[in-house]
């Protein structure tokens, strides 16, 4: 498999992966004197499932926040769809077609599942506040069109039964699914998942894995995810970036990463004499 091929590559299960969608060049992120990320370079290709793994405190979430535009790195460049990305506000990044879920669920607890997912369409609504408030003319037509998109997502993630339930009353596993639904509602090019399986039981993990694969398969969405469950990561992802202490220590297919000595050391620990 030739990773450097600009035209992409074919995965083990026969999926065609396209060219580079996003490229991180020499990213360094500092908080005061602490280097959270040091000189990391990697790319995410169109249509692939890309995992970022590493021990606690390795800088994975910081990396995801750089991709999502929440943190602006002190050094390095972020290239998205062939263009260098200037520092942006998160909403501008969202408008570019990047959506995400959060490690600690960030939903509106008092709102229904449906309303929460509708907020995922917000960036694409064109009519003004007043028109929407009186729900007339174009605003009405627009809402119906958006609702249809949202209903497709609800159907896809099989959460019809909780459509009208306030999010606060849902169990954890379902909240995670609602968060994924909201991200999907934005019809992203790139979907960022921050520990989508954290705190789930085996069955919930299986469901979530199924949904992630289906999203990738059905909509062709590129997915970058952070995950601690190694079994899940190795099964789901096409390529894996391994971080430790803010540095990249490995990059490649799950098999390559599994056999990488630096990675094994980072996870199992080495004796420092």
């Amino acid at each position, binding site marked *: 498999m030739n990773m450097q091929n600009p035209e992409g590559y074919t995965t083990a*299960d026969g999926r065609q992966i396209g060219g580079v969608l996003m490229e991180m060049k020499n990213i360094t992120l500092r908080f005061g004197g602490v280097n959270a990320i040091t000189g990391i370079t990697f790319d995410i290709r169109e249509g692939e499932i890309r995992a970022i793994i590493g021990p606690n405190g390795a800088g994975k979430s910081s990396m995801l926040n750089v991709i999502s535009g929440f943190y602006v790195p002190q050094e390095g460049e972020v290239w998205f769809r062939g263009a260098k990305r200037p520092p942006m506000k998160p909403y501008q990044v969202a408008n570019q077609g990047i959506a995400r879920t959060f490690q600690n669920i960030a939903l509106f607890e008092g709102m229904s599942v449906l309303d929460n997912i509708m907020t995922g369409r917000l960036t694409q609504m064109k009519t003004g506040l007043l028109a929407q408030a009186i729900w007339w003319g174009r605003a009405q037509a627009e809402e119906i069109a958006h609702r249809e998109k949202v209903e497709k997502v609800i159907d896809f993630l099989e959460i*019809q*039964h909780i459509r009208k339930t306030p999010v606060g009353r849902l169990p954890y596993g379902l909240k995670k699914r609602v968060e994924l639904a909201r991200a999907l509602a934005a019809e992203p090019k790139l979907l960022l998942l921050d520990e989508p399986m954290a705190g789930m039981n085996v069955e919930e993990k299986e469901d979530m894995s199924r949904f992630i694969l*289906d999203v990738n398969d059905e909509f062709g969405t590129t997915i970058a995810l952070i995950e601690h469950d190694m079994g899940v990561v190795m099964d789901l992802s096409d390529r894996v970036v391994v971080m430790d202490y803010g540095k990249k220590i490995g990059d490649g297919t799950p098999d390559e990463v599994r056999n990488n000595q630096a990675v094994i050391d980072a996870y199992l620990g080495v004796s420092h004499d």
Partner: protein
Amino acid sequence: MNVTEAPSGLVSIPALLARNVVVHGNKAAYREKEFGIWQSWTWAEAAEEILAMAMGFLALGLERGDYVAIIGRNRPQLYWSMVAAQMCGAIPVPLYQDAVAEEMAYVLDHCGSRFVVCNDQEQVDKILEIEGKVPHIEQVVYLDKRGMRKYDHSRMNAMADVIAEGRAGHHRFDTELAKRIAELTYDSTCVMLYTSGTTGKPKGVVLSNRNIIETSKNSSEFDHLRAGDEVLAYLPMAWVGDFIFSIGQAMWTGFCVNCPESPATMMTDLREIGPTYFFAPPRVFETQLTNVMIRMEDAGRFKKWLFDRYMAVARRVGPDILDGNPVSGSDKFAYWLGNILVYGPLKNTLGFSRVRVGYTAGEAIGPEIFSFYRSLGINLKQLYGQTEASVFITQQPDGQVRADTVGVPSPGVEVKIADNGEVFYRSPGTFVKYYKNADSTASTKDAEGWVATGDAGFFEDGTGHLRIIDRAKDVGKMADGSLFAPKYVENKLKFYPAILEAVVFGADRAFCTTFINIDLNAVGNWAERNNIAYSSYQELSQHPRVLEMIRGHVGEVNQSVAADPMLSGCQVHRFLILHKELDADDGEMTRTRKVRRRVIEEKFADLIDALYAGKSEIYTETEVTYEDGRKGAIKATLTLADAAVAPAQKVAAE
């Protein structure tokens, strides 16, 4: 049996469909909630889809006499696929979608189906898993495209593509399809349904067009069903009842079949549709009632008062009003007021505002639950039936509804009681045969067409209503020769929330005794409210106050058993509360939670002996199997108690 002819050429389901297009063309035939909206198809639209689907099947090579397995939840397209298969001269075989792959393999192998229609990836995966065991499967058609992109499609098609192909090629298939539809007769097979198979392997029950159409016609007339009625199709498609309601009666009367969005949304969808004709097993009614009661416990004081007051009125006069019996003017007014304040809103919440005819069957329903719904003005009735009868054997006519009978023979059905009490029937709905099982057919259905139900029962004097008392093989005689029907008494005991299971003994004995399993939820709750401390199931079960409560329940049951002249001998004289729950892991119950009498009798022989020996206490050790297969023993000292026995009302004529 007199052989009837099909009314005016309506010899098959496709023929009924064609008639519905003419008569009810623009009325809604099917609805399904999808993407949050009820999508609907008129009879004309549905027929167009079904024809295209049938031509698509022809394009795939479906032959006359093929069996088409259908697996999935209730969806219009799956119902259509059954009719489309019939059009091609094939026989639909709906399967239980929650069956594990091995059970499916048995059935698919037994019927030798070449075509399988699946709802989604989950079902397709099961079929692929068992492909090696059932090599004759040639074509898999699936409805939901999700996740299917990567599958090998050389012998697999999406339903949308099958329909599209049928539509595109209709010039090629028109003649052939018309020919095959014309070949269908009143006696060609309409559907094959597999019995659930609690004993032994599932059996394929072959039902002809005559069975289905005659039964649908008779039962629709019995309950005055008509076009414009609404049903909610949510029970398994493999179950004969769903086939009769959602295909037979729907096609006969032209009413509308509504499919829920997903199994989990059934209650919401029920409320939105507000069916006029509704069927549910007792469990569904029980759950709904419990939910209502729990919510009322949390309601404000005024609402609670209002609810209690008017429910009392409803219990007193509701059933009479529903049956059209005379009640006083003030009661009528109170009920009318109650309807505005309580019953109406409650029925609306439950989704029963429009129910004209409601049925329950399958197992005994608690009299309180039954009368709760009837007192609200919901016409809930009972029926008795089985797959081999195309459902209907007996049913309750409007105005003659009671909790303890299953009604009078359905129109066209003859019922007789054999000397040993077993119920036999014959009817136009009586099945043709068990597929590839001549022995079973012969042992179930005799030359004159009488079918043994395996249930024991009797006709009540005066009303002519049938009462089912037990499985025929469990019914015995007591030492004094009176009838012993354990399940009859057990069901009465189990209607108390505190009692989870009861096992009654008494065959060839002087009196009856029983084991009781308490319901940990209900009794635990009760203990909490009454400040009774306990540390284990075992301790709670032997608590003196629990024993007192159960003694009271048993006494009440004895009272009601005594009122029945034929079964008064079955009163429970002594009982004990078991120190462990009866469990399938220990072999004491089947996986479907039916008590295994013989096993329990052997395993707890010491306890039974002690009950009959008149002891007041016994020490016992019982082997238990944990969920992971390890074994252990529990030791307990059980209290044996006497129960109050009511004086029997002797049968006047011996």
